[in-house]
């Protein structure tokens, strides 16, 4: 933790900020990218959101209170940027954000950066049919194998509520896959 405090100080210090930021980007770009990608699905959209996320981190590092781990804070920014991106995109198209992501999932088969098989495709479609919060919880818990306490810190939701949300998400996915008779 003291290493992290020293690193945060170097991010705030104008003399060392740029160098420290380079290190921050290098250490976290892939993990943040994949978290974003699982929310917005499309690579080019993820690239936009990742850039917005790092810009926001750079601009607001001075306002980071240190009441959570640095990565938790960055993850929270990435999550909110992803959700905001989806809302903005769907608003432009005149649809709801869950409708937008559902359509994206339906078109994954033709996405050149989707290498999954039929099972993976059906699973992504099932995940995309969940409400935003449930989808996030399922992704973070099941696909990213995060602990409930870390998810709680990122989403600002109690662990009990997360467990409930996850339980409902799994149930809905099972029902969806069974209804579609894929398996």
């Amino acid at each position, binding site marked *: 933790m003291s290493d992290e405090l020293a690193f945060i100080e170097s991010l705030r210090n104008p003399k060392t900020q*740029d160098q420290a930021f*380079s290190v921050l*980007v290098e250490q976290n770009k*892939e993990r943040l990218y994949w978290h974003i990608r699982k929310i917005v699905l499309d690579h080019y959209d993820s690239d936009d959101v990742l850039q917005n996320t790092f810009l926001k981190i750079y601009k607001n590092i001075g306002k980071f209170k240190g009441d959570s781990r640095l990565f938790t804070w960055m993850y929270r920014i990435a999550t909110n940027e992803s*959700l905001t991106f989806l809302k903005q995109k769907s608003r432009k198209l005149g649809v709801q954000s869950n409708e937008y992501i559902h359509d994206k999932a339906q078109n994954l088969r033709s996405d050149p950066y989707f*290498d*999954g098989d039929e099972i993976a495709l059906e699973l992504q479609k099932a995940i995309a049919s969940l409400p935003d919060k449930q989808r996030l919880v399922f992704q973070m818990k*099941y696909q990213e194998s995060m602990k409930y306490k870390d998810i709680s810190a990122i989403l600002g939701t109690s662990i009990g509520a997360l467990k409930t949300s996850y339980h409902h998400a799994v149930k809905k996915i099972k029902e969806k896959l069974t209804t579609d008779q894929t*398996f």
Partner: protein
Amino acid sequence: MSTTQNNRSSEAFRVPDGYFETINTRVLGMTTAAHKNPFSTPKGYFATIEAGNWTKKIKKQPSVVRLNILRYSAVAAVFFAVILLTNSPASSQLDTIEDSEILALVEANWINAYEFELAENINTSDWSLEVVSENTIYEHLLSNPNTMDEYYLLD
């Protein structure tokens, strides 16, 4: 239940041919599908992500001017002026001042007023007032990337 008793009860039931042989494959297939990442990126994508280009872009942006406080203060002063003028005999025309006209004066930075003047003169009857925690404000700002409010509200 003993092994003997267990075996006896299972004799009453049948399963499809080859069922147990397929369980591993199906279950593992599902778990592998869930955990295996089906998404890919263009070749060399992560190598292209460098902090340098973004920091240059941020530093090129003009410094933020805290217009919002000035804007609200100006609105307050305009209201003050309206209140004073409505007490005069020739004030009936001022009753029809549109919000857009007030904002135009604000945008032109004609008025300089203190925040207490703003607080006294803004009509809050249409506002849905509720206690907002600092965390809620913080989350709101994080979720609204285009707002300029973050530059002063988090001080």
